[in-house]
């Protein structure tokens, strides 16, 4: 037990030092990187480490006779959660969301400190002490609070009432509901039944399994399989089309969607929102190929209102590409990211 707790304490101290160092720029802020795609899991893990660390710390301290009062433990933990959300989470989350998490963790802290009558009493003891002001120190504190609280609250409300020019929050639906069918270059495609004509095997037949077998396992650093080089001149079928799709992608799409297909292309920084990140498991991996076909063909203009068509830079690619070229680009995007399109069954 003791060893376990010591380990927890060690983790806690190391983690706190690391986090503090990163926040105050003592050590490079990218020392422990939040890796795209793994960010939520990484943060849950980090958080678990910190909780274990705190538990260990408080155990060690009480074992050494320097137990921290329950009151300060509760407040300290809550403050930690707020700071963690503010400084560690990237991309930053809006204040409203942080406030929500803050409230939830406040409730959790209350539940923890009021788990038993004894704990609750211990928790509120410092507050009562200040209110009663039996000692000189507490009297001083009481007067300080009496003065500081109104000033603080008045100051906050003044700050809140000052007219500000902050960006208005606009909630955009990233994947709006697609139409049942779409007309591209004069031909109607039913989204439920259409298929990518280039997802074919070597005999030229539509074959989801064959192409899936040529897509590498998912994960960062997705690479082609050995001996599945789309640049091989002898390629026929799927891999040949992947290369053709890649050529079109790198002549038209990578300026925004990036060489990594992660939405960080050359021009991407100028746009709001920045272009879609195909390596994020929340984008093309969640969608049917026909959805992508509709989005690529119609671009930002073709979006319904909830998709903010006015803010999208995505052109209707049917103006620049043929239907075949669009299907090939889609094929390439799945090959390059290692994802499988979602299917109807």
């Amino acid at each position, binding site marked *: 037990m003791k060893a376990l707790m010591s380990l927890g304490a060690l983790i806690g101290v190391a983690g706190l030092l690391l986090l503090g160092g990163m926040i105050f720029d003592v050590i490079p802020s*990218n020392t422990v*990187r939040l890796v795209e795609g793994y960010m939520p899991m990484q943060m849950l893990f980090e958080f678990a480490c910190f909780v274990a660390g705190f538990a260990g710390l408080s155990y060690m301290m009480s074992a050494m006779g320097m137990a921290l009062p329950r009151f300060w433990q509760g407040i300290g933990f809550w403050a930690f959660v707020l700071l963690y959300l503010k400084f560690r989470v*990237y*991309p930053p989350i809006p204040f409203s969301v942080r406030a929500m998490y803050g409230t939830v963790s406040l409730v959790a802290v209350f539940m923890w400190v009021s788990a038993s009558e004894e704990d609750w009493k211990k928790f509120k003891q410092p507050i*009562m002490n200040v209110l*009663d002001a039996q000692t000189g120190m507490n009297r001083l504190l009481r007067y300080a609070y*009496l003065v500081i*609280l*109104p000033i603080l*609250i*008045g100051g906050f*409300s003044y700050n809140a*009432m*000052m*007219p500000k*020019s*902050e*960006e*208005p929050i*606009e909630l955009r639906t990233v994947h709006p509901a697609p139409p049942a069918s779409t007309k591209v270059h004069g031909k109607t495609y039913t989204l439920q039944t259409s298929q990518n004509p280039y997802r074919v095997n070597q005999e030229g037949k539509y074959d989801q399994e064959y192409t899936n077998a040529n897509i590498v396992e998912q994960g*960062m*650093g*997705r*690479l*082609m399989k*050995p001996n599945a080089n789309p*640049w091989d001149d002898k390629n026929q079928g799927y891999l040949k089309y992947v290369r053709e799709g*890649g*050529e079109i*992608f*790198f*002549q*038209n799409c*990578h*300026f*925004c969607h990036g*060489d*990594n297909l*992660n939405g*960080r*292309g*050359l*021009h*991407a*920084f*100028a*746009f*709001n929102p*920045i272009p879609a990140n195909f390596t994020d498991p929340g984008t093309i991996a969640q969608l049917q190929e026909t959805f992508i076909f509709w989005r690529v063909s119609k*671009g*930002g*203009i073709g979006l319904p209102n909830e998709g903010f*068509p*006015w*803010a999208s*830079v995505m*052109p209707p690619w049917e*103006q*620049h590409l043929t239907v075949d070229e669009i299907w090939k680009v889609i094929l390439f995007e799945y090959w*390059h990211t290692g994802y499988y399109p979602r299917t109807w069954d």
Partner: protein
Amino acid sequence: MMDSITQKAGIAAVAAFGVVLVSSASYSIVSAQGLPEGFKKGDLAPEPSAEMIEAGKRVYFTKCVWCHGVDGAGDGPGADRLWPRPRNFNQGTFKIRHTASGELPLFDAKKPIPGQNDLFETVTHGLPGSAMPSWEGILTEEQRLQVLAFVTTQLVKDRKFTDKQSETQTVLQLAEIKAKPATDESKKRGGELVVEKKCVECHGMEGRGDGNAFNLKDDWGFSIQPADWHKCWNFRGSRQDPYNVGNIFRTFSTGVNGTPMPSFADNTTVDERWDIANFVNSLCERDALGNPLPIDPLTDKPKINFVVPSDLVEGEIPADMEHEAWKKAPKRYVAMGGQITHKPRNFVNRIDDIWVRSLYNDKSIAYLLEWDDRTKSVAEGKLPWAPTQVNIDIKEQDPKTGESESIAAHQNNYTVYNDAIAIETAVKWKELPAPIKPRYLFGTNDQFPVDIVKWEADGSLRAFKGTGWDKDFEERDNYEESMKLLKGEWKDGRWYVMIQRPLGNKKDQDYDEDTFFEMGQYIPTVFFAWDGHNGDAGRKMAVSAFFYTFMNPPIPRETYIYPAIIAVGVVLLEGWVLTRRANKKKGKTL
């Protein structure tokens, strides 16, 4: 260990002595070893293993081949529409190094140590200001080393990284050289040195990259442009750390291979190099307090605030940029991307940001727009398109035209059009339920038009109504009388344009015609910019995203009253809590 070092140093000294004998440079500043100050002899790295090269080939043919090409000649399918073009690996010429000019960069397949593995760092962090992205988080460290093993052994054809006969390594010891603090004195001396060392001939008098802008070519004959010192986030090799003066020191010491940028290691002392680096670093854009701009880790460019605040001035809006009101007005960074949505598309965008400030009075609103443009372009003769005209029917250049016909080869050879800038606002933004706006490119249709105020380098200021990306603009004749060009000046690679326009027809509240500028409201605003020497005209241009013009209202009286009331309320509450507690205690003790 010590022995081998002294031995090496001995050999290095002899070799360097030979170099000094051969080189007739009379002004060489060399250390005791015969090497430029701050450099030491290094060893060639061992050849990577065959398995590593084979694994690297897979990485290359998945990720890199699209731009750098099958043979590594920098001619992949993406290459022709890129400027600067992807690196041609064949000759072994690499830009960002810790090695002396002309030498191969540092690469060791076993050693990803910062400052000792140039190619690894380039792949890891990418090259800002070019299409080369950061591969960190995409490829593992091992994969990055593997692909470099493949590139250095198979695609670099004219030289060999392990050939002790022909290759030497003279390594800049950046980690050991103590940085000189950026004092005013150091920066002042640096400012004098950039003139003395002729840096300004290419980089321009104010370092905006506007000197000699037409004649510079890289080793492959493609036109290139000198760096703009005011945009350090675009420095190659700035490694997501653009304000780090060490990066400038390194580039200045080693030169940029393949470009006209030489190494200054031989004719400057380390001290002088720090002065120059400090000076160049001091030019990079900073905020009002002189702090580095926060860099957005998502994009590696300055963070963007999409609100352009406009401050109220009494009386006339000053036309003088140096006026107190303009100096106090917050300056916003507006990022610009190439318009590649509709033909003619602008793949090579040369205006990647503008700076915007705004002021208003009771009748007008004024924008002060500043942007770096290496060339002042004013069209001569008749333009192929009237500024009102759509030119979407233009034949677009086929991307598969080979190097000599590529966009990069054509750069700086275009017919010269007018430099221009435009502010587009949504006409009926009041009637549209938020957040709905017209389409950002020239409006949606007659129902949701936009109002475009465009200035061109010939001095004209015109207003148009846009009703869709594929429709000609309608010129607004009667409206232009009330607009005013307060300033339009090009100086040392930067345009300063100040445009004043009316706040809209307030009397009739005529939302159909005018954009009605209202205090305290978010008014959707888009910025367009054209670089005349880039062939930008009509729809070929740089575009921003939707910004908001926000006219700061005067602070209402309630802002002062309510917080005071709240504070008093808190005091009362405190009194109540204390009395209650005291009473309760009394009750208990009694």
